[in-house]
Structures are given as C-alpha cells and as structure tokens.
C-alpha cells in the first residue's frame, strides 16, 4: 500500500511528459549523439557498423546522467523523506520505489530510441538485437548507480555535476560487458552485464537510504 502510493507518485514525477513529468531532453540528447557521430568520423558504413554499437552505449550512459539532478535533491529539500520517516517508511523503501520509477522513466524510451539510433549508424540486424538485449540488461544497473549517487550528492552544492563524474567509473563494468557483447557473438557478456546490474540494483536502495539519513544529520 505504502509502496504503491510511493511508486505512483514517483512515476508521475519522473516519467517524461505531463504537467509534473520529467523532461524528454535525455532522450533527445541520446539521439543527437547518434546523429552527430557519423558527421564527426565520416560516413563509411563498415566503420559505423563496427563502432556504432559502442557509441550508442556511451550515449545511453551519458543520457542516464542527465535526470540525476532532480531525482532525489528536490524531495530531500522539501522534506518528503522527513515526513516519510515520521510515518515509519524506511528510506530504503522510498529509494527502492524511486529506483524502479527512475528505470521506468528512462529505460523503455531509451530502448525505443536505440532503434532509430541504430538505423542512423547503419548497424546490422543481429547487432541491433544484441545492443537492445545488452541495454535491457544494463540499464537497471545504471538506474541503480544513478540513484545511489543522486542521494549521496543531493545535499551538496553543485551535486549534479559531481554526480555525473561519480557515475562514470561505477558504470564502467556495465559498459565493458554490455558494449563488449557486440564484439562477440555469444550471450555470456549479456549475462554478465545482467549480473552486475542486479548486484547494483540490490545494493543501491541501501546505499541511497543511508545517504539520506546521513544528509539529515549534518
């Protein structure tokens, strides 16, 4: 019941579109990178097909940074987490709900946008499938890292920029295996991406919850 109420509000706040919704900018940013890449390196189809998948991955990772600023900081400032704590709702529960909503708000649209992006880069069909599966396996992990970092930096000035810098090293394992799946034809790399992703998903609510409690006590 509590989880449902939280999730409903979190999704309404984060999902792009709508009056209080999040913005479509991360998605447009993602597509813009895919569009600019051929201009920057030249239009040879073999080269684009070979490197394009990696570019989509990097673009996805950077697009995941953009919504972090508004993920936790606003609610921390307005006292939502304080009020939840008074009602006995654990910070971990609030953060788990926030993580699910964050993933729902950016990943499905990102997967959808990966299709036109792949077309812009001229990726062959089998690589597109691998790319989509990899993104599907990797984005929950990105959402989890993003949430933990957003919570850690929420009470800092200039936290958003710091969040971006902190996300990059943590996201490297996901990137290595997720983008690495494009080079090898077997599914092991995707399974590894999913494994890392799940690990982050399991840890993030606890890390983020602790960060919120710590932010109160300064």
């Amino acid at each position, binding site marked *: *019941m*509590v989880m449902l*109420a*939280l999730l*409903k*509000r979190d999704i309404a*706040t984060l999902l792009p579109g709508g*009056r*209080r919704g999040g913005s479509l900018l991360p998605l447009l940013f993602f597509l813009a990178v895919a569009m600019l890449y051929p201009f920057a390196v030249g239009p040879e189809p073999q080269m684009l097909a070979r490197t394009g998948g990696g570019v989509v991955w990097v673009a996805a990772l950077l697009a995941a940074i953009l919504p972090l600023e508004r993920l936790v900081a606003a609610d921390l*400032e*307005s*006292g*939502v987490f*304080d*009020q*939840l*704590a*008074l*009602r006995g*709702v654990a910070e971990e529960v609030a953060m788990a709900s926030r993580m699910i909503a964050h993933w729902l708000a950016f990943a499905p649209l990102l997967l959808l946008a990966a299709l036109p992006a792949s077309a812009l880069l001229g990726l062959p069909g089998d690589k597109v499938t691998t790319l989509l599966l990899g993104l599907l396996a990797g984005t929950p992990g990105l959402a989890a890292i993003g949430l933990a970092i957003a919570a850690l930096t929420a009470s800092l000035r200039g936290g958003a920029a710091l969040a971006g810098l902190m996300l990059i090293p943590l996201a490297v394992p996901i990137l290595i295996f997720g983008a690495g799946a494009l080079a090898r034809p077997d599914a092991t790399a995707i399974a590894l991406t999913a494994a890392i992703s799940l690990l982050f998903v399991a840890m993030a609510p606890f890390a983020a919850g602790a960060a919120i409690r710590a932010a*109160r*006590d*300064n």
Partner: protein
Amino acid sequence: MQASALTAWELFCRRGDRLLFGSLDLWVESGGAVHLTGPNGIGKSSLLQILAGLRTPTRAEALTAAGIKQGRVEWLGRIGLLDGRCTLDEVTPLETALAFWTRLDGASRIDQAAAMERMGLAALGDVPVRYLSTGQRKRAGFARLLIQKADHWLLDEPLNGLDSDGVALVEELIAERRASGGAIIVASHQAIALPDAQLLDLRDHPW
C-alpha cells in the same frame, strides 16, 4: 496524574562546529504543551528534528570523562511535524498533492475534503501549490497535518504568514488536539495562545 506523551533525556545538539544546546531533559504529559523560545540559531528547529527522530541527539564526542551520554527520545503515540516547508509537490494542484499523503496515511477522500474545508482551502483544490501564498502554504501544511491524524504535533513557527483568522484557527486546532490528549511542542517567536504551556528557553541549556 497525567500519562506521559513524551520523555526525552540527555539531548545534545551540534551543527557542524557549533555546539547548540546540551543536557536537555524534557517531559510532556498527554495534553500538555511546550513553547520553545530563544534567539535565532539557538537550535529550536534542530530540537524539533531531534524530537521527531530525524536527527541524532547524542553527543558526538567519544572521549568525555563520563563516557558517551546516550540521548533518548520516547513518544507514546504517533507524531506529526510541520516545519517551514509544507512538503507538497510544487507543480501539482493542491488537491492532488494532498492526495498523496492522504493515500499514504490511509485516510479517506472525505478526511481530505474536511481538512481542506477546515483550513479554508476548499476553493483552491485545483491551484498548483507553487502559486499559493505564504499563508496559504501554511494552511496547506496544516491540512496535511490534519489528514495525518497524528497524536502529537511538533510545530516550527506555525503562525508564520498567517492572517488573524488563520492564527485563531491554528490556536483552535492546537487546543482541540490537546483536549484529545495530544502533546504539542511549538517553536514560535510570535505570541501564541498556549494555556499552561511549559516555557523552554534553550539559552538555559548550554552544551
């Protein structure tokens, strides 16, 4: 003898390097009230946060002669907190913003409508929260507090921005809550009608 609503021992508070207050014990009977006073920055809001369980009351120095004194706060019943923020989603209409807390507190739409009516907000249901004036936000905060149906209230400057009708209304709400056995702790610079309230000046409790 009245039942005790709040018992707190050995509360210490520091913000960064500043030591705000210490060795504070507080006992409030059910139906009682405390009026917190003291100059700005003395730690009134911090004390309310400690009492709400949002801030640790323990002295953060491990090497005092007597060892660490463990601060403790115990309430009998549920507590509600209203500080300077109304804690409602800024861009959503007031009614939707309140509905989130209504759902979370397991209250009904009727409770919410009654609370809005009581606070004089019935006509503002579809106005986004960010367009509300200071006084209206305060009223909206009280509507949230009423919906919560907590036993005891912690109020930080509850009269800020309210007009004279609003002040009278808040004093009435406080009196009703006390009559039904709630304890009220108010930090306020403004004069507020709190019959038989303990007066607590944090200057009397140095670290």
